[in-house]
């Protein structure tokens, strides 16, 4: 059982952070061992389960965001337009990158049967995907993966919360 004061300091750090933080960085900042910070993060996540906040973990980085249950009210505050603005092709591309990523543009094109470069540029500019290194194959093509913004867009705490992909028949 992690020290409750460690959990609290982690919560405060994640509150002020202007970016997602890794467990390693959080260990540094709290002056604790990684072996203490990791369970403490899990406890923080559990503690927040019934609250207005949610701990997101993606790619080993943590970020504090509002809970999906508060969507309506927060949207009202931010006067954010209703998010019906992702087109069908955009959702399709995001789904492939979310379930299959990180992947290259060529692989994406193959699955979709159409050229995806315009769509990728669009999703990159919206921050829903990020470039995540390069593949080892010749030409070292860029790999694309979904971002923290993607998880926020759908109120997900991690990619594990994505609906399971249908089994192949």
């Amino acid at each position: 059982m992690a020290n409750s004061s460690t959990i609290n300091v982690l919560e405060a750090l994640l509150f002020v952070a202007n970016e997602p933080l890794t467990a390693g960085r959080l260990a540094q900042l709290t002056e604790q061992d990684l072996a203490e910070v990791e369970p403490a993060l899990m406890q923080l996540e559990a503690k927040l389960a019934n609250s207005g906040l949610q701990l997101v973990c993606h790619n080993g980085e943590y970020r504090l965001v509002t809970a999906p249950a508060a969507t309506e009210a927060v949207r009202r505050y931010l006067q954010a337009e209703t998010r019906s603005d992702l087109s069908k092709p955009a959702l399709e591309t995001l789904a492939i990158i979310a379930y299959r990523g990180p992947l290259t543009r060529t692989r994406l094109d193959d699955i979709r049967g159409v050229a995806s470069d315009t769509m990728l540029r669009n999703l990159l500019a919206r921050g829903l995907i990020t470039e995540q290194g390069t593949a080892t194959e010749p030409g070292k093509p860029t790999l694309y993966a979904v971002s923290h913004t993607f998880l926020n867009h759908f109120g997900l705490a991690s990619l594990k919360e994505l609906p399971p992909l249908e089994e192949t028949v």
Partner: protein
Amino acid sequence: MSHTVATAEFEGPLALLLELVERQKLEVTDISIAAITTGYLQHVRTLDSQSPEQLSEFLQLGARLLYVKSLALLPKEAGQEQAEELHQLNLELEEYRRYQQAARELGRLSSRSSWQRQAVSRLEPHELPLPDISLARLAEAFQIAIRRAEPTRPQGILRAHISQESIMKSLRRRLSHGAFELHALLDGAKDRLEIVVTFLAVLELIKLAELRVVQSGQFGAITMEPAHG
């Protein structure tokens, strides 16, 4: 059977093919390939040719369907290849279908969202150390960013590289069976655009020294043959 499907619904050829297959409640088999190909091409004919890139993507799958369909007319040894092609097509379609399903699920999640904190925490102004950068570096960074931004403008017509790539792929498949005549290649073409893309693919293969074009005298038949055979 009606093929009047709203074109805008289909963002790509696989979506259209999937719809046709599901509507007929069929798998893509050698029995249904003829009907599906006909339905597909009928639909492609109604596409808005204002967007040649999109059109060429539809056409390349059309060309592939025609090719698979045509294998049935060829001698026995093509039967095995047709079975393989159909299997491959089914696999691709099935994979696409799963992601289309996943995209629908994702769309359903859109009613919920999370937000990060909007306020930015910072130290008091007098506590802020300033970065060690020069104006020259700043100017340089700006110029690099602007230069990179320029070529990302929308591209011109017919730069649909994957369409050409996959026509090249199907040409390679044909070449692996030996020489064939140009008119056989273009007979299935439905319009100028498909012919153009096919020619581009042929030129590319010539450039790559994979294909040779031979003409048996003036006005004689033009034959494509493997360059290394």
